[in-house]
């Protein structure tokens, strides 16, 4: 689990760094195993996740890293959740910007690699979420 926690911390830091300006100047505040408190629907198992708390002292937001799916999907999903929080806190800024386009890059697993990619054409721009 220690390696996973460190990896998730690295993911969150890389995403915050990549979002750049005008994203909020958030830092990774904590990365901890998450324990589900609420009953799940009948026949369905509770998700296994790592909880990531980020913020700047005044604002804190939380995202999850899934331990139930392959790492590329889990990484892209976490990146997307951080991106959503940042876009919401900037009233819709395209973060991170897609070069030459007006939309933000999308976080997706591509060929086994969690990537920032142009949502219209991956050939236009694709880069790994964790360099």
């Amino acid at each position, binding site marked *: 689990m220690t390696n996973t926690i460190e990896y998730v911390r690295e993911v969150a830091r890389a995403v915050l760094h990549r979002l750049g300006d005008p994203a909020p100047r958030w830092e990774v505040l904590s990365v901890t195993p998450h324990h589900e408190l*609420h009953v799940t629907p009948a026949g369905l198992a*509770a*998700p296994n*996740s790592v909880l990531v708390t980020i913020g700047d002292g005044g604002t804190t937001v939380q995202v999850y*890293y*899934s331990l139930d*799916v392959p790492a590329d999907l889990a990484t892209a*999903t976490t990146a*997307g959740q951080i991106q959503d929080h940042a876009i919401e806190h900037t009233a819709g800024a395209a973060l991170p910007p897609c070069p030459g386009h007006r939309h933000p890059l999308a976080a997706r697993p591509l060929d086994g690699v969690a990537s920032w990619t142009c949502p219209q054409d991956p050939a236009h721009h694709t880069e790994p979420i964790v360099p």
Partner: protein
Amino acid sequence: MSSKALIGMRAKLGVVVLGIGSLLVAPAFAGATAVPVAETVREISVESSAGVNANSVLTLTFDKPVAKAEAERYRQELAAQSVVQTEDVDYISCEGDLTRSDANGTWTVQYVCFSGYGTIPWGFRLSQAVRNIVVGLVTEDGLRWWRNGASQPKNAGHVVPADYHFHGTMNPVYHYNTVSYQDYMTFRHNVGPGGTGSVTFAGSVETLP
């Protein structure tokens, strides 16, 4: 289909009883001597259904015990909201969307199809009746979802005002998947002596081309 109200109350001594459409109170005992039925409760629940595959539950816990008659009045006020009648099974096709509404809120799901996969953006708003009893912010746990019974990455939670449009995306999904989802929100409420409230909504859809 009509709304059903499933009532749960926690008596003073912590005994939980459940009944459908009526108020039940658990008997309380002190040592070996039976005492009269407890006259106060600490918790009420109202389950609201918008169809077989969509429902929500509002639970209010009180900081101080309230009289059972008073609790029943709160329950009736909270349960007396309109419910949208829906089909029994939720199917959703590419580029289609569904809206479900009950006493506790309204939620929508869409099925957006791309080449080789799809996503289900979703949104939820608390009903005006629930918003009226919320004090301060609402803490959303984050949507949990399952694809064909397998747990998928939980959506991020939010701490926001009661009129917030909660939203997220279930991603990826594919044709002919059975997708189940559930989210949980907590808040302070102003009913009676005040306390802690929660709303859980859940449903499932099957994706079609």
